[in-house]
């Protein structure tokens, strides 16, 4: 009985550490493979915003968080 309880406790403990509880299987990665999960969309948006900034401010740069290149920030 003592062994049974200790085995059950050990199995519960090991199940808690088991990676099968959290691991996404290779065949379950459909949503990870979606294009909206890539960073390319954000890159495209940054480029677009940079272009608008260039037209509006008539100056290059301004796509960083520090100074805009036109001296206005």
């Amino acid at each position, binding site marked *: 009985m003592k*062994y049974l309880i*200790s*085995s059950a406790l050990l199995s519960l403990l090991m199940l808690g550490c088991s990676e099968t509880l959290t691991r996404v*299987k*290779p*065949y379950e*990665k*459909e949503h990870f493979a979606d294009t909206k999960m890539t960073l390319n969309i954000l890159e495209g948006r940054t480029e677009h915003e940079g272009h608008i900034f260039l037209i509006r401010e008539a100056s290059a740069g301004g796509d960083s968080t520090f100074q805009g290149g036109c001296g206005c920030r």
Partner: protein
Amino acid sequence: MNYILIFLLLTFNLFAEVNVGDKAPDFTLKTLDGKQTHTMQDFKGKVVLLNLWASWCKGCKKEMPAFVALQKNNKKGFELVAVSLDDSKDKATHFLSTLNQKIPFTVLHDSKKQLGKAYSCSAMPSSYLIDKNGVIKQVIIGSLDSNDIKTLQNEINKLKQ
């Protein structure tokens, strides 16, 4: 002590993968158009290449034209069974339509991913070469290139005899 041994054996059994020499796990799945149902027993007496694929998997797209050619070159005694693990049938159908070829092999749909689980699929795509008696002879992880297909063809020829 015996309890601990039993526990350890059960634990290892949970992580058991399908290996060469194992009996191919059975399945009951519908074709992509939903008109027919197939089981592993339907292909008994034929050499089977069971391919697990999905429309979102780039490697699957790469090897699919080679699979079309493989099935065309092996009209007798060989069956390529491509099982889509996509959530939706539409995505799988669209994927196959982009190949611009008539698909000569059996395409099944497994939205519940029961074959992924049964075969402990460790990467997409995965293919399993199964002999006439339903025994797994080769486990192929990843997409196949033209050289791999040639090697596979030789293996198929041996198994067909």
